[in-house]
């Protein structure tokens, strides 16, 4: 039932999640090609100065939604879709992204991305919600799988299969989050590298890389800690078997000094490069 299958024509390159707190640091990174902005943090009025400046430097801007609740039982809200569409238009976005998650239930906000059950029924509702969103958006939609400490019982398929089915059925693009994959694999005891290959890598719009921390034997995908070596390893492994159009760093809290942020961006670029070399040689 693929409604529309978007071709991947946009090469994004190296990117970073734009936050007002790291605007100054990101402005120093000449190699940066795109930024991702949280759509809900952009008001109805003027765009933040840093985002305008980034556009003037020639950076692409990708709005990243966190409030559509595409995995929710309710259909996506009209006003939220209109806002996301308006942000996409105002920043001249090549695409927008959202999550395979629910963020509210029974009219109450979770304040966080919560996982959906990996069942046929949930997939059906997700496909419907995604189709409604695609209809309302002026640009292609990429979907991101989330990190989840809690899993619904009676899963009918694993995450890679669930995401592949969703992407195939909706024609949406994939926002592959390697930190989420790393976290889920570690916390739920499976092999991230093996699972990676079964994601629809040919549909990647771009890739998220974020930091986290191991606390009491549980890996927390916090985005407020440095990127761990295991995630950088996955970046290399991915780039050894695929050529993702963009790879970006996500840092949301406990912002480090500019030098650390730049070093993290360089470490990601190195991993992308190493993987690319292996792919070309193979």
């Amino acid at each position: 039932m693929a409604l529309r299958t978007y071709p991947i024509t946009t090469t994004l390159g190296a990117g970073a999640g734009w936050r007002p707190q790291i605007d100054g640091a990101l402005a120093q990174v000449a190699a940066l090609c795109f930024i991702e902005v949280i759509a809900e943090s952009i008001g109805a009025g003027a765009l933040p100065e840093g985002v305008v400046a980034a556009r003037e430097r020639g950076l692409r801007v990708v709005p990243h939604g966190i409030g559509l609740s595409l995995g929710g039982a309710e259909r996506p809200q009209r006003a939220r879709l209109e806002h996301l569409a308006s942000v996409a238009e105002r920043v001249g976005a090549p695409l927008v992204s959202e999550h395979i998650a629910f963020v509210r239930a029974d009219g109450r906000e979770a304040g966080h991305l919560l996982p959906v059950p990996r069942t046929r029924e949930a997939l059906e509702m997700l496909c419907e919600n995604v189709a409604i969103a695609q209809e309302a958006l002026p640009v292609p939609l990429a979907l991101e799988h989330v990190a989840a400490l809690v899993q619904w019982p009676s899963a009918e398929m694993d995450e890679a299969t669930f995401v592949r089915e969703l992407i195939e059925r909706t024609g949406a693009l994939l926002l592959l989050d390697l930190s989420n994959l790393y976290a889920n694999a570690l916390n739920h005891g499976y092999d991230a590298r093996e699972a990676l290959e079964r994601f629809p890598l040919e549909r990647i719009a771009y890739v998220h890389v974020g930091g986290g921390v191991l606390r009491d034997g549980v890996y927390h995908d916090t985005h407020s800690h440095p990127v761990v070596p295991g995630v950088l390893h996955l970046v290399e492994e991915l780039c050894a078997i695929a050529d993702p159009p963009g790879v970006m760093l996500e840092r949301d809290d406990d912002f480090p000094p500019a030098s650390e942020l730049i070093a993290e961006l360089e470490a990601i670029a190195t991993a992308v490069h190493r993987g690319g070399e292996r792919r070309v040689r193979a």
Partner: protein
Amino acid sequence: MSVPDRSAYAERQAQLLDALLRGDDFPPGFVAARAEAAGSALRRKRGRAVAPAWPALALCLGDTFAARFDAFDRGAGATASGAPLPDGLAFARWLEAAGVALGDDVRVEILLGRAALRRHGVWMRLAFLREPYPRLLVVGRLPFAGQVQRSLRLAER
């Protein structure tokens, strides 16, 4: 494929959200230890969203902020909005009710928060403050004018 039952799904999601916030009574089939870790991560995340919107409160609580917010969210979370301003207000009032001394800066922050959350009508509150000098603070919300505040110094230093 049969038509999915959205209302039953909504109920299951609401049950999970409630259980995550309360930290107990997880629906059958969930691994309790993992669900508890997920609940505590969720409450921590909600607290971290509240803190920057309530700087005086965060400063006043210092290192105890996270633990206190966790205790608040376990009890009140199911009715909280997930938005920093109203959740911070509910948290501050919960602390007041529990007898936690919050100080003048937090009192002002609470008044400003209450005014900001008013959407219509006339609303006005008065507070006597000692720091940094004795003064009377009037905070309100008026039609057309929106949020207003006036500070009246009561004595010279």
